[in-house]
């Protein structure tokens, strides 16, 4: 009983109630149609999620992170509603640029098919480019790191090439490659290749000597040494580079799509912004955030699974 009360009387729940209550405040005169029912629906859905999470998550640490995040989301929604339609702020003159959450949510209900197509188009490019880069960089990094002599030279070269921002390749790639999609994949490959290669090489160099010795005394062959010993031993460090590569890939892809694509999330945002439709543009921005967060979350699950042997 006490336990339940402790999980119920938390700040995020209070913020949920505040979010509902401020809906009752009178709207300021407003040019873009608002749909407060969508804001309320979202608030209810989030609250259901919050309650489920705060009673189902067993570990204290995970539950606290979850409720804290939900609290921030509610606080942000409250701020958003107040700033756009309830309070008389100086920026309200540009209401069309800052639509309220209800208006943005309504776009998803109308536009979800198009949004999903754009998400899919962006993700296909990301995965193609990223998987090619990782599939090339990890074996090459293992080989270069393991053969110290070649590796030392390769280390300097990759530092030089990796320090060039892949953004500079975008115009060249768009001109040189037949399609925009090919150009995007190319840029993503280049962008995620270097950090993955660098972290793999450094991971190999940092493998503990006693692990290598232990494998040597077991007379492992070359391939077994590389893929069953060196690869897992350097995996924690490899993941750092893979994570960097993934982040850079998203940033670059969205930028590239804003420049030259005819589909994808970056295109969606840019296209609507060009037509002055900021409600859709904002919907796209939020969708990018959600997509990246979801991919990062899945990526972390994969990492946790593959590194489950680590303390």
């Amino acid at each position, binding site marked *: 009983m006490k336990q339940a009360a402790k999980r119920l009387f938390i700040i995020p729940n209070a913020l949920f109630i505040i979010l509902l209550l401020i809906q009752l405040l009178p709207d300021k005169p407003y040019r873009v149609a608002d749909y407060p029912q969508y804001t309320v629906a979202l608030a209810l859905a989030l609250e259901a999620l919050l309650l489920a999470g705060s009673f189902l998550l067993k570990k204290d640490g995970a539950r606290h992170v979850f409720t804290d995040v939900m609290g921030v989301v509610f606080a942000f929604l409250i701020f958003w509603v107040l700033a756009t339609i309830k309070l008389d702020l100086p920026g309200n003159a540009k209401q069309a640029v800052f639509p309220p959450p209800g208006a943005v949510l309504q776009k998803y209900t109308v536009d979800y098919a198009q949004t999903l197509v754009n998400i899919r188009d962006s993700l296909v490019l990301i995965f193609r480019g990223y998987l090619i880069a990782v599939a090339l960089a990890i074996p090459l990094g293992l080989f270069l790191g393991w053969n110290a002599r070649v590796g030392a030279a390769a280390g300097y070269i990759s530092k030089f090439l990796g320090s060039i921002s892949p953004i500079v390749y975008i115009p060249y790639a768009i001109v040189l490659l037949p399609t925009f999609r090919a150009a995007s994949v190319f840029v993503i490959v280049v962008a995620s290749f270097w950090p993955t290669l660098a972290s793999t090489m450094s991971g190999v160099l940092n493998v503990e000597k*006693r*692990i290598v*010795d*232990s*494998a*040597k*005394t*077991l*007379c*492992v062959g070359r391939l077994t040494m590389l893929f*069953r*010993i060196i690869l*897992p*031993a350097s*995996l924690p460090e490899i993941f750092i580079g893979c994570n960097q590569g993934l982040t850079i890939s998203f940033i670059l892809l969205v930028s590239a799509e804003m420049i030259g694509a005819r589909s994808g999330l970056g295109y969606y945002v840019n296209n609507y912004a060009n037509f002055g439709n900021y409600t859709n543009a904002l919907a796209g921005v939020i969708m990018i955030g959600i997509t990246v967060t979801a991919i990062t979350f899945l990526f972390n699950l994969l990492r946790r699974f593959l590194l*489950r*042997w*680590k*303390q």
Partner: protein
Amino acid sequence: MSKIEVKNLCAEYEDKNGDFQALKDVSFSVGDGEFLSVVGASGCGKTTLLGVLQGIITPSSGSAFIDGLPITGPGTDRAAVFQHYSLFPWMTARDNVAFGIKQAKKGLSKRERHELAHVFLKKVGLSGFGHKYPFQLSGGMQQRAAIARALAMDTDILLMDEPFGAIDAKNRSNMQELLLSLWEGDGDTKKKTVLFVTHDIDEAIYLSDRVIMLGGSPGRVAAEFPVRFPRPRIHSTIRKTGEYGSLRNKLMALFYEENNGLAEEEYTI
């Protein structure tokens, strides 16, 4: 012919300020099927010596032979238990043992390897722990899993570096019995030659056919003692004999004599 032959072996480590000599002119041999213990103070080069025999340290001069052939690298005729736990952290205890089996014994199916791994984990008292990763095991359990891996490989030669150091008295005595029974070879395993490094003089006497004392820095062979108690030995019985007492005293005296200067240097506060 002796199984292992070490001749005028010198070993050096590269250091920031020149080379550090760890072993100097070490010569001895181990007969086929012999159980030889190596004792000596900390830092006298026991691990270095095993490293040479494992084929992971190249001697600076002199050489080591197995079956008359010079050692040029690691071989599946030898299994090693390292002083510091040498399990692969990303494999479960069972997979670690099975991996060793796979390397040493070709032609077993995956299932047979796993079953054999289970048998040996059971022998070292870890039957319920096969699915655990090394980080989930205590230090002594990790060491026993590493021992299980070496024993399961069923090699001609066992090179063991303080294998029972982290293990409690009761498990330790079980492990000693296990080691002796596998050394002699039961139905499933062959008779082995064992080179066993330990700090425990009683353990060395109880287990070995012969004890070698390394001493000094750089390390060299200070003395060699045959241990003539008939087997099977019973700890409590041989301990009461005068022969045991005099052997033990000789070893202890030599140990202190050899490491007099060393000990004072190290422990001055």
